[in-house]
């Protein structure tokens, strides 16, 4: 088994004058769940499309399963695009079998598996309904089943959770985990951090067309200092003196941030100060905070660059 199921390097795409994707690389370990996160319009979908060979990159390459061009291993891929699409006149069972047949699955086997999947997801009552009669969420689940009915080795899901109610989101998470247990590699994009936090082994954050972070969820969270809420038992005297600069008092509580290696020295200072501890909470920030932090930093850098450009232009 190869180390990386997906090896996309330096993917770049221009849409006329706009650089939609700027040298994005995605290395997805085989058998992992990998999240591509980013704000709207960051270039996630275009990156995934180039990774799968649906559109050609202007620069960069994409290889799957240890060196194959995506076009040569289509039958091993399952893909749920961002813009959902099904033939409205088709029945759910036929739509799923058709999508499987496109990837080389026998029609009869596709119909049989469609029945199994639909029953598992509690949708068996609508299996012979036409797509046009289904709700948007149901149709989305049908399309998702169609993406995995041929048991692909790589499943690529573009914003799979959008449009689903919480119950179906939970079902989808279960399905994703089960597919990983089957041996599939899952690559999905989202801008909902909770799903990524619960599911992903590794993530890439894309903002302003370029990849800004790559690593585990914990590594992303570690980009931000720990958040501390301290409530002294005895607030008399100068509590702020023993706390890091920037500590902020809100009622009886003090809020401040510390690096990971500053926890024990902080505890030692509190103990020695005699203020005591009525309450103490030290926590890592969530992926949501890390994501917002990264994206804001990128935005700030862009704003600074633009200001410099404007100054240089006016000077010239």
């Amino acid at each position: 088994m190869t180390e990386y199921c997906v090896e996309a390097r330096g993917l770049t795409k221009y849409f006329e004058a706009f650089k939609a994707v700027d040298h994005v690389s995605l290395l997805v370990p085989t058998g992992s769940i990998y999240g591509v996160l980013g704000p709207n319009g960051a270039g996630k979908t275009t990156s995934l499309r180039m990774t799968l060979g649906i559109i050609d990159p202007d620069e960069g390459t994409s290889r799957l399963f240890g060196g194959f061009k995506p076009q040569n291993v289509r039958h091993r891929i399952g893909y749920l695009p961002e813009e959902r699409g099904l033939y409205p006149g088709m029945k759910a069972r036929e739509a799923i079998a058709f999508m499987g047949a496109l990837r080389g699955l026998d029609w009869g086997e596709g119909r049989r598996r469609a029945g199994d999947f639909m029953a598992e997801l509690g949708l068996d009552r609508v299996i012979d309904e036409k797509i046009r009669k289904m709700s948007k969420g149901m149709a989305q689940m049908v399309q998702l089943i169609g993406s995995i009915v041929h048991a692909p080795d790589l499943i690529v899901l573009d914003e799979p959770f959008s449009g689903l109610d919480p119950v179906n989101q939970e079902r989808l998470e279960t399905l994703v985990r089960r597919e990983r247990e089957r041996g599939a590699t899952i690559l999905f994009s989202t801008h909902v951090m909770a799903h990524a936090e619960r599911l992903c082994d590794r993530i890439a954050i894309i903002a302003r067309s370029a990849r800004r972070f790559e690593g585990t969820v914990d590594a992303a969270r570690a980009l931000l200092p720990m958040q501390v809420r301290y409530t002294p038992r005895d607030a008399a005297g100068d509590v702020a003196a023993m706390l890091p600069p920037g500590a902020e008092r809100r009622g009886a509580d003090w809020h401040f941030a510390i690096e990971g290696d500053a926890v024990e020295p902080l505890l030692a200072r509190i103990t020695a100060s005699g203020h005591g501890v009525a309450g103490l909470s030290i926590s890592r920030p969530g992926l949501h905070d890390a994501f917002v932090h990264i994206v804001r930093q990128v935005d700030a850098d862009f704003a600074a660059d633009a200001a410099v450009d404007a100054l240089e232009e006016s000077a010239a």
Partner: protein
Amino acid sequence: MTPVFRNIFVVARRDFLAIVATPTFLLFLLAPLFMIGMGALGGFGASQLADSARGAGRIVAIADPADIEPLRAADARLRDALPGDKPPTLELRVADADVDPVAVAQEKGADTYAVMSGPLAAPRIVEREAGSRSGAYLSLLATDVLRDRAAGAVAPAAPRFESLKKGGTSIAAQQGLGFGAVFIIFLLTLLLAGQSVGMLAEEKGNKVIEILAAAVPLESVFLGKLLGLLGVAILFIAFWSAMAVGGGLVAMTQLDPGAMAAAGAASAKAQAASAALGVAPATGWPFFVLIVLAYFIMSFLLLGAIFLGVGAQAGTVREIQMLSLPITILQVAMFSLCSGAANAPGSSVATIAQIIPFSSPMAMAARAATDDAKAVHLLALGWQAIWVALVIYLSVRLFRSGVLSGRSNWKFWKRGAKAAVAAAAAAEVAAHR
């Protein structure tokens, strides 16, 4: 089945069923009834006009002045005495050195079934069909005049029969066949291939195109769609061919109950049909029918691929409609060229029409009617297949680089310029920084 063919088959199957398994297909299938009804009405009117203009059919006797009245009297006697259908009206002409009986038989404005000329004892009878009742009647007239004149036993006239079919006129008829093939291919292609212009609009509208593009090569999608529609066209043609054959058989049984017994004898029917038509294409009927079908398929694929490729670039129904017109004009232009080719086999016009890929199927079908060479058709089919592949390839390239990349603008010729401007701008920005 190889993956490529399997992919094409999956797409074609879906499209075929999506079209056929709908109530609107029934309307589509029966649409020619309206055309036939209107055509029959028009044809009936035209037939009435033509009949009134030219009168009934005729037989002609070209005789010496002395034989004119005896022939007229013999005709008056025998016409009433003959059982069954009466012979066509007898037209009598005085013999002249310049009168050519074959030319008389081919005169426009009248259906001439037989022409008798020369001495009554050994007349020359030119027939429209060999062994016709009209030729025999003219021979009988000559014998009757001789018998009346001799007032006793006399040897019957010994006519020398000629059939127009053997008289070298079949080339014109074969050209007519060629033109018929051109017209049929043009009409069917116009009616059926044009539908492919909107085929990808469905996928673009319901966003299925991305699923297809991710799952199979776009070439398979395009070719699969074309073959799906071709399947519909073949079904359409088979339905109406079966209706025509069935209708013909029913008509035959109405005329002759014994014909039902012979209905199963296909080869006899083919011969009978050939005899009824009075002409056979140079390559023979079985080969001609098959090759015309093959050329229809190639013409359908060629024009369908253009329609599909252009339609794929369109973003709205209005654009699709607008883009259909130039292609239809192209079709009509090719039809005009091929009509000229059918009427002038072996000419440079015919050669040009046979080479131009979009007129080649029609022009080659016309050639099959007048030229017995068969191997050249394999070459032509191969040439046309190359162009089908080329058109699909180019259509896919345009589609990938334009629509699928999020550029809905169908003005593909502007994309290259815009990309160059973008690259230059990017380079300038990079240098500036």
